[in-house]
C-alpha cells in the first residue's frame, strides 16, 4: 500500500517561515536565502519517494541541517589554508556593524554544525529535544548534549555582558 502524501505546498505553508529563520540564524541572511532554495529543491526531489508521512517537519529540517553542514564545509574550504575555521565568522556584510546581536549571531554561525542546528532548533525555533534529535539524527540525550555544548561554547566566545 502506498502512502498518500499531502501536496508539497502545504509543507511550505506550514514550515517555510521557520525554515527560513533556521537558515538565517545558522548561516546568515545572504547564504540563508541560498540554503533555503537548496533545501526546497532537494526536498521536492526526494518527496515522492517518501514511504511515510510521519514527521514531515523533521524530514524537511534534516535536509536543511545537511545544507548547513555543506555550507560549513565549503566555508571551511574557502578559509584554507587555515586548519580550523576562524573562531568567529565575519559579521554579516549587509549588517550595520558591531551591535552585540551581530556578535551573538556571528558566534552562533561559528559553532560546529551539529551544535549550531541543535541550539537554533532548541531556542530560536523553540522545539523540544525529541525534535532536535530527529533533525540532527541522534538520540535525545545526544541532542541535549549538543545544545549544552553549543551554549558553553557561545558563552566562551562572547564577550562578557555589561549589564545595565
Amino acid at each position: 500500500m502506498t502512502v498518500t502524501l499531502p501536496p508539497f505546498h502545504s509543507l511550505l505553508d506550514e514550515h517555510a517561515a521557520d525554515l527560513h529563520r533556521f537558515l538565517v540564524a545558522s548561516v546568515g541572511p545572504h547564504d540563508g536565502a541560498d540554503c533555503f532554495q537548496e533545501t526546497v529543491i532537494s526536498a521536492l526531489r526526494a518527496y515522492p519517494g517518501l514511504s511515510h508521512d510521519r514527521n514531515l517537519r523533521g524530514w524537511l529540517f534534516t535536509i536543511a541541517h545537511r545544507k548547513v553542514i555543506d555550507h560549513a564545509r565549503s566555508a571551511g574550504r574557502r578559509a584554507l589554508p587555515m586548519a580550523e575555521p576562524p573562531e568567529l565568522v565575519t559579521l554579516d556584510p549587509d549588517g550595520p556593524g558591531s551591535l552585540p546581536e551581530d556578535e551573538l549571531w556571528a558566534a552562533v554561525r561559528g559553532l560546529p554544525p551539529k551544535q549550531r542546528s541543535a541550539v537554533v532548533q532548541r531556542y530560536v525555533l523553540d522545539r523540544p529535544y525529541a525534535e532536535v534529535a530527529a533533525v540532527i539524527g541522534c538520540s535525545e540525550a545526544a541532542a541535549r548534549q549538543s545544545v549544552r555544548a553549543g551554549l558553553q561554547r557561545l558563552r566562551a566566545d562572547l564577550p562578557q555582558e555589561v549589564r545595565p
Partner: protein
Amino acid sequence: MTGPHDTDDLVARLRRGPERPGAARPPATAGNGQAPDPDGLAALVDAALARADRDDLVDVGWVVTDSPVGPLTLAATPEGVVRVGFGTQEDVLEHLAGEVSPRVVRLPSRLDGLRRQLDEYFAGRRRSFDVPLDRRLSHGYRRQVLEALSQVPYGETVSYKDLAVRTGNPGASRAVGTAMATNPIPIVVPCHRVLRTGGALGGYGGGIDTKVWLLRLEGALAL
C-alpha cells in the same frame, strides 16, 4: 565561572531570533502571494519554485484565480491543464496529490496562458480555448465522452442522449451523466453545454447558477 543567570540571558537573546531589531517577523505562512511579505519570504519561495520548475520538479503547478463565477483553482502538469476546480483549493489539491503526484506547488507562471484565455472568455471575447490539456484524470468511456464534448461549439447545447449517440453508445445516457459530473476540466471542456433531453438544465459541479451564467454568457439561454 559563569552562573546560570548568564545562560538564561544568552537563551533569552537566542529566543529573540536573528531578525534585525525593528524588522517584522516572517508571516506564519508563505501566503498566496497577495499577503504582505515584509521579509521577502513569499518572493524567496516563488524563486525556489521557479528554479524547481526549470529542474522539472513541479509535477503539478497551481494558482487560484478570481472569476465572475467565483474563485477557480487551476492546475497543470508539464503536459497541460489537468484540473479546473470550483471546490475549495485544499480539496482540489489533495486530490491531485493522490492522483498525479504529491509534488504540487503554487506556480502561477504555468497557468498564465489559461488565465488570460479565461479572462477573455468571461469578457465575451473568446469562444474556444487553445491550451494543451492533460486528460489523465479521466479514463475509458468517460474520457471518450469528454473528448467528444470538446467538439460542441460555443453557444450550442446538446443532450446527454446526443452525446451517448455521438460516442456510439445510444443507451449510455447515464454513463454520459457520470462523465459530466466527474469532468476534471470544466469550463474549458464545456460540460455546461450539456442539458437534459427537452432542455431541462440538469446538474453542474460548479452549481446550477454557474451553469446558467455560462450558458447566458454564450447566448445559449434566453434571459
